[in-house]
């Protein structure tokens, strides 16, 4: 069990002209499964290939072609479900969602409306201020992605690339448990983090491998609690769905803009129409996708080309047994084993690669010291050059070596920063560098004492002042550090200065 406890975050309210309003948000995350081949064909999922080169005849919907499911994709959906503590349905089935669009050659998308592979789960969304929201997951189903239409290459034509057609998506559907734009972003970030730990989706939002549809409605304070008691949606406002967003920043903006639009309508005596909308970040507004409304008669029916998907409990158990340590558990362990703060543990476990790096550095060393060095020095330095942890020029062994030199009092913290910079830019073994460059701190009290005596002898006036005002001791410490080229052990210097001046 996790011993991390959190308060519930405050609900975001927006002041209208007449009332304060609360937000109610549900999110559908579309996550591309990180598979080699597509869900129902043997074509590659590689991003950025020549247009229409990753296309099998199944994807192009040539007559007579039949879908054959990719077992790895099933496994990733199950893994994701287990990672979200969700029920796995041993029997699920595929349905056809019918609509016409140029980038959907079949004329239907194969999805799982009636019997999804994953049922109810939950995810804890930390807000970074000691609060967290428990968001319920309604379901996860597998479905095919559509192709890509490009509208700006020709004034009269749209260009269609089917490379993405048929790639496996997991649609993760939340309950309307999210109560503000920041929570929405934190929720998506958490889902992304869990999937990256599991390796089921790379979470690359820029490439569109992770997209979100966001359902937004508004209600008066108190109404949501009545919904919670009864699960009756009538207590909530009419929702609008903002489609297909792949930027955390735009998602937050879109929610806020859409909520304000709904508030203005309702306070003006109107009613919100349930519809699909698009967010336009340039204009900062959402607008109706009415053109698509009419097509929203999807006429779902079971796909006759595919038998129901039956999986065995033993297989699910095997997958469960092979799950890696997940973010919540890892964070709790870092706090317990390494004595880290909640904040530091969150930063270090945000990406699975960072956590692995930290653990290697911290192994057998002071965890807090290791955390400080990884977060403040290494992350700071990497960020400066826009490098990822996986591109770090300093290996965990090298950083560990630097920390060992500090721990053994061989170098001071200040010199350690210089040493870090040398290792970062030119590489090498930290201990050897310290030897070769004479960076070891002087702990020989005789040498420090000699330097201090010289300074005291040369500055009798300062000595008198310091005897009256002990704060001036710092000046002597500084002078000794200067005289020893910064290599004197600060602890030893402080002690000696205090002795000599106090005595």
């Amino acid at each position, binding site marked *: 069990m996790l011993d991390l406890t959190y308060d519930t975050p405050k609900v975001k309210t927006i002041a209208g002209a007449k009332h304060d309003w609360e937000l109610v948000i549900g999110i559908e995350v579309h996550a591309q499964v990180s598979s080699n*081949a597509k869900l129902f064909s043997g074509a590659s999922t590689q991003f950025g290939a020549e247009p229409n080169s990753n296309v099998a005849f199944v994807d192009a919907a040539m007559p007579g072609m039949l879908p054959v499911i990719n077992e790895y994709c099933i496994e990733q959906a199950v893994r994701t479900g287990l990672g979200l503590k969700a029920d796995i349905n041993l029997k699920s089935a595929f349905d056809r969602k019918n609509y016409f669009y140029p980038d959907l050659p079949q004329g239907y998308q194969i999805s799982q409306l009636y019997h999804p592979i994953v049922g109810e789960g939950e995810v804890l969304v930390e807000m970074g201020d000691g609060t967290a929201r428990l968001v319920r997951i309604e379901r996860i189903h597998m479905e095919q992605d559509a192709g890509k239409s490009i509208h700006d290459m020709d004034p009269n034509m749209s260009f269609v690339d089917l490379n993405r057609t048929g790639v496996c998506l997991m649609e993760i559907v939340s309950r309307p448990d999210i109560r503000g734009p920041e929570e929405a972003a934190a929720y998506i970030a958490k889902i992304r983090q869990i999937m990256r730990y599991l390796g089921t989706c790379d979470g690359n939002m820029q490439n569109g491998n992770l997209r979100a549809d966001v359902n937004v409605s508004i209600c008066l304070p108190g109404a949501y609690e009545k919904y919670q008691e009864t699960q009756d949606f009538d207590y909530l406002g009419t929702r609008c769905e903002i489609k297909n967003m792949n930027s955390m920043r735009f998602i937050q903006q879109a929610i806020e803009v859409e909520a304000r639009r709904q508030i203005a309508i309702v306070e003006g005596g109107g009613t919100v129409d349930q519809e699909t909308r698009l967010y336009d970040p340039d204009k900062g507004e959402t607008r109706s996708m009415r053109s698509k409304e009419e097509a929203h008669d999807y006429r779902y029916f079971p796909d006759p080309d595919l038998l129901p998907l039956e999986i065995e409990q033993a297989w699910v158990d095997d997958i469960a047994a092979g799950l890696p340590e997940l973010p919540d558990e890892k964070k709790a362990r870092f706090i317990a084993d390494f004595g880290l703060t909640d904040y530091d543990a969150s930063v270090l476990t945000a990406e699975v690669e960072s956590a692995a790096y930290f653990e290697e550095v911290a192994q057998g060393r002071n965890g807090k010291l290791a955390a400080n060095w990884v977060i403040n020095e290494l992350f700071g330095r990497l960020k400066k050059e826009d490098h990822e942890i996986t591109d770090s020029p300093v290996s965990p062994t090298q950083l560990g070596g630097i920390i060992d030199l500090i721990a053994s009092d061989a170098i001071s913290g200040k010199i350690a920063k210089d040493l870090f910079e040398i290792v970062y830019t030119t590489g090498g073994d930290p201990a050897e560098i310290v030897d070769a460059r004479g960076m070891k701190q002087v702990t020989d009290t005789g040498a420090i004492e000699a330097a201090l005596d010289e300074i005291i002898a040369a500055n009798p006036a300062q000595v008198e002042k310091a005897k009256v005002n002990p704060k001036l001791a710092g000046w002597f410490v500084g002078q000794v550090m200067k005289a020893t080229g910064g290599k004197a052990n600060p602890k030893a210097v402080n002690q000696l200065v205090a002795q000599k001046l106090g005595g």
Partner: protein
Amino acid sequence: MSIDQSTAAKVAKLARIKVEEDALPALASEFNTILGFIEQLNEVDVDGVEPMVSVTPMRLKRREDVVTDGNQQDKVLANAPDAREGFFAVPKVVE
């Protein structure tokens, strides 16, 4: 349940099948015949009977996650009315 001409027209439109105005009454009537048959089937009590999806006991066939297909841009585009620079070119569709 009964299908009128406007519902028949809507179904045709959703399926992207062109039906002339004067053919709609016959189409609506055919739909009604089919639905009548379905209604007859609906009278059978199937409570507790699992839907049969296949006449032979078969398991959904699986495939390994290996790339075995693709790299046939020319063949994929061969039947396209218009193709440019490797893309299907279609009349402009904009939201």
